[in-house]
């Protein structure tokens, strides 16, 4: 923390804490509107079938039923999709996975609505279900007929069941492998993980007196909701206003639409407000999940450990709709090299439609999967070469003018500090010399594991408006949803710092598509970095207007003025000659100049690919973002009898540029570690044929207080990114990314077995130790 800052760097509890501990926060399920109806959804019983017709007579006749919508209510061109427009709000013509929404009812009560959907008769003609990418690639049956003709925002190479393909290449991998002394090649697999925000998805829509739709929903971006509902219903965006209640966690599953277009259609048809909140089972079955990956990694090294060439090939299960998947494919490949110097790289992969729930954005966006593979292999290379795995990484990490894969310049690089601080804090070197991390209990083996990763914060557009009120306090309006991570607090701190005013003099506006500046979303670890910089820009505009006013009031040149702490403009070097924001605000509102409003917007503008360095095919993100870094050491204990692994301690060093609020940064790191532990050890969505077998919290376990170690050491590394607000970068995802790989490496050291498939269950570890993989 730097002494010159008043707000930035302070450990401030989130500004809405009191409201949350008193149970006064309103989430989507807590909202009610006059005359509100309740919605329910009919889900598909088939994985793949044509819809031959509907019989709604019995459902319509039920007392209390006010509206029914089916796929026929959505016109053919009105398809949604962040990358490929392939999805109607309700199944139209065909169903493509078990659980897909087929029809929806609005009724006086939820019970009536649920009974009515069961009274809807749909005639299906079953088609062959394609449940794996391999099966789908080999089949002549197409999940989307005519995918080639869908509107796409990228060159996706879509054909048949191939949804998209992406490739990055630098140097010449064939030559690189030829020049290598040792070449290692392994195949890895990762599982589907459910987001399990404790708040299930839901939405409430009503028509205002002008006939415009107002939509509240559990979401990560009011602007994405507005755009997707407009697409799905074929309405101009001016007809739709989106607002947000408090959000009960998201992690990616509330970024793209879930039930909002369905609820909007019901409200339009019923002419009344309609609320629909998914049950936990429905939330599991019809929203989205983390992609299962199959990954082949081939790495060539010199005898001295110098990295020469790496090839990574991935195969992603897309599920039935593209959603964010082309982005996940492309982004995972961008991260698959790792934060290392490799003269020769080729990362390529395919994304394949299957008859399963769509997979989409989930904290880490494909990076935890490829990092599990790449970082596992680097440990095995270190063992084969007889060198310390951390030393091997330090020998090869990006430094100086080294670039990200594709050629993007690194605007800051705290990699070495992350590695060294995690290593030193964890006592890695002593452990390597034979000291146990901590005495193992009888029948247990304990060891450390390490992993290192990079991840971006950035992407697309953000804006901010700072408006001074008549009394000299300000209103900050950014349109960015706080989904629990604390951005309302962090952005308010940035605003207070930029204007040198107390935090309590900043009011934070809840996002509203009618009044807030555009913000793409709370995703891609981007809000602190992207929106924070917009806030700095808007505050600078306010500062300019304040100084113009003050120069007239103090009769001096603008250049001679500066902001001073506490909300005043003073003559430089003469702090007693000052004028407060209160006086300036009064003058601007009532006498001269006009009320003070500052605004700033920007789009992330550094190219991902430098064509002189790299070739790219099917690039989903031409301008990706600033890179953050993280090194993790985990202390894992393996039970020799059951094989079960338990994480006992974690050290996580994250390069966040600058911590605007270290308390909240630590909260992100700790939460990311817990989710990473879940992915590594506990969580797996399992399909029984085409049907999700564990869509309940009874059967799908997430870590509890008993699975997450109490001892977690968050180490904040500050590399001061020149592009970030006060030097800040994102932390939301990077904290999770290395954790599964570090756990896998610790299991290897403890139990002597390398597992190539997640999750690392006790059974798999035990089978591995018994030589039965």
């Amino acid at each position, binding site marked *: 923390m730097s002494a010159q800052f008043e707000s930035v760097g302070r450990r401030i*509890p*989130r500004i*809405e*804490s*009191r*409201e*949350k*501990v*008193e*149970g*006064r*926060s*309103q*989430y989507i*399920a*807590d909202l*009610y509107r006059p005359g509100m109806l309740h919605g329910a959804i009919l889900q598909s019983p088939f994985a793949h079938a044509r819809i031959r017709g509907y019989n709604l007579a019995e459902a319509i006749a039920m007392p209390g039923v006010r509206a029914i919508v089916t796929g026929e209510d959505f016109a053919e061109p009105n398809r949604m999709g962040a990358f490929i427009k392939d999805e109607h709000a309700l199944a139209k013509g065909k169903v493509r996975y078990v659980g897909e929404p087929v029809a929806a009812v609005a009724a006086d009560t939820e019970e009536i609505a649920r009974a009515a959907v069961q009274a809807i008769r749909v005639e299906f003609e079953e088609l062959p279900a394609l449940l794996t990418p391999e099966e789908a690639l080999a089949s002549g049956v197409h999940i989307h007929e005519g995918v080639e003709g869908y509107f796409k925002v990228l060159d996706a190479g879509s054909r048949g069941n191939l949804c998209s393909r992406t490739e990055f290449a630098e140097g010449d991998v064939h030559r690189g492998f030829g020049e290598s002394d040792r070449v290692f090649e392994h195949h890895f697999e990762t599982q589907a993980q459910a*987001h*399990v*925000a*404790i*708040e*299930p998805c839901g939405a409430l829509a009503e028509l205002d007196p002008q006939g415009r739709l107002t939509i509240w929903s559990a979401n990560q971006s009011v602007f994405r909701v507005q755009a997707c509902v407009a697409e799905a219903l074929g309405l101009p965006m001016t007809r739709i206003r989106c607002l947000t209640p*408090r*959000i*009960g*966690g998201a*992690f990616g599953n509330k970024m793209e639409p879930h039930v909002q277009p369905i609820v909007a259609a019901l409200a339009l048809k019923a002419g009344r407000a309609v609320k629909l*909140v998914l*049950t*936990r089972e429905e939330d599991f079955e019809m929203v989205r999940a983390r992609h299962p990956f199959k990954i082949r990694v081939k790495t060539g090294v010199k005898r001295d450990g110098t990295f020469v060439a790496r090839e990574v090939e991935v195969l992603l299960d897309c599920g039935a709709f593209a959603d964010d998947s082309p982005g996940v494919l492309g982004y995972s490949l961008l991260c698959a090299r790792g934060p290392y110097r490799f003269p020769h790289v080729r990362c390529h992969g395919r994304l394949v439609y299957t008859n399963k729930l769509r997979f989409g954005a989930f904290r880490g966006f494909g990076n935890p999967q490829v990092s599990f593979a790449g970082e596992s292999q680097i440990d095995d290379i270190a063992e084969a070469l007889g060198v310390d795995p951390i030393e091997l990484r330090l020998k090869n990490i990006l430094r100086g003018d080294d670039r990200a894969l594709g050629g993007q310049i690194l605007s800051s690089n705290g990699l070495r500090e992350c590695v060294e601080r995690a290593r030193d804090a964890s006592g890695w070197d002593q452990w390597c010399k034979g000291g146990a991390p901590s005495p193992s209990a009888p029948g247990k083996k304990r060891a450390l594991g390490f992993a290192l990763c990079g991840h971006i914060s950035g992407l697309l557009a953000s804006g901010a408006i700072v408006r001074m009120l008549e009394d000299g306090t300000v209103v900050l309006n950014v349109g960015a949803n706080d*989904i*629990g*991570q*604390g951005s309302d607090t962090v952005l308010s701190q940035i605003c207070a710092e930029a204007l040198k005013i107390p935090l309590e003099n900043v009011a934070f506006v809840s996002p509203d598509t009618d009044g807030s500046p555009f913000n793409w979303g709370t995703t891609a670890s981007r809000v602190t970095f992207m929106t924070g910089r917009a806030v700095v820009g808007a505050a600078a505009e306010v500062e300019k207007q304040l100084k113009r006013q003050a120069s007239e009031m103090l009769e001096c040149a603008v250049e001679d003025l500066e902001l001073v702490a506490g909300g005043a403009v003073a003559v430089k070097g003469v702090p007693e000659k000052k004028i407060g924001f209160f006086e300036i605000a009064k003058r601007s509102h009532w006498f001269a100049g006009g009320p003070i409003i500052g605004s700033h917007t920007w789009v992330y503008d550094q190219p991902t690919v430098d064509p002189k360095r790299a070739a790219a095919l099917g690039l989903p993100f031409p301008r990706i973002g600033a890179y953050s870094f993280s090194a993790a050491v985990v202390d894992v204990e393996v039970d020799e009898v059951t094989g079960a692994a338990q994480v006992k301690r974690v050290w996580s060093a994250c390069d966040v540029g600058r911590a605007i609020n270290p*308390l*909240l940064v*630590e*909260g992100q790191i*700790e*939460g*990311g*570690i*817990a*989710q990473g532990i879940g992915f590594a050890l506990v969580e797996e969505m399992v399909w029984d044929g085409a049907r999700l077998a564990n869509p*309940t*919290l*009874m059967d799908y376990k*997430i870590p*509890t*207080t*008993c699975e*997450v*170690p*109490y*001892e*977690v050491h968050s180490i904040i590394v500050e590399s001061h990114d020149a592009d970030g607000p006060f030097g800040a970068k994102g932390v939301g995802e990077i904290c999770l990314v290395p954790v599964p790989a570090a756990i896998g490496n610790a299991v290897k050291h403890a139990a002597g077995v390398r597992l190539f498939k997640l999750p690392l269950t006790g059974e798999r570890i035990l089978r591995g130790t018994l030589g039965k993989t």
Partner: protein
Amino acid sequence: MNDTLEVRITVNDSPIVLEVPLTETLLTSLRDRLQLTGAKRGCNQGVCGACTVMVDGMAVRACLSLTANCEGQSVLTIEGAGADPAIAALQDAFIEAAALQCGFCTPGQLIAARALLAQNSRPSIEDVQQGMSGNLCRCTGYNRIIDAVRKAAQRLHP
């Protein structure tokens, strides 16, 4: 299904009479009839703990409790819990320790912690881990919740 029962209960110190279907859960009565939305529906299956409320001093899952079974009982929800010194201490400690992020599980965590402290006034880390293992949180990683519960315990019993 349509049989209803008149139930006399006390909610947050106010005696009330409810006419409810026999199958209605306490969570539905609180949220939909009484507009007490502090208890959350996370799974409706008794696993996540977001709906935890106190019934006659015991922490219960409101989604698994039938209102019809609560005749004569006293229900405390987060909305009425502020007057309880232990809840107040927990609320302050949760804020200071940053033991909440999205806040959705927080009312349930606070009530569960209150019940734990009633049983064990100075819980160890392991005691809190065991005692609160039925309240899921997807944001925090739990360690700050453990710190907050122990900090509140320390303040209540210095």
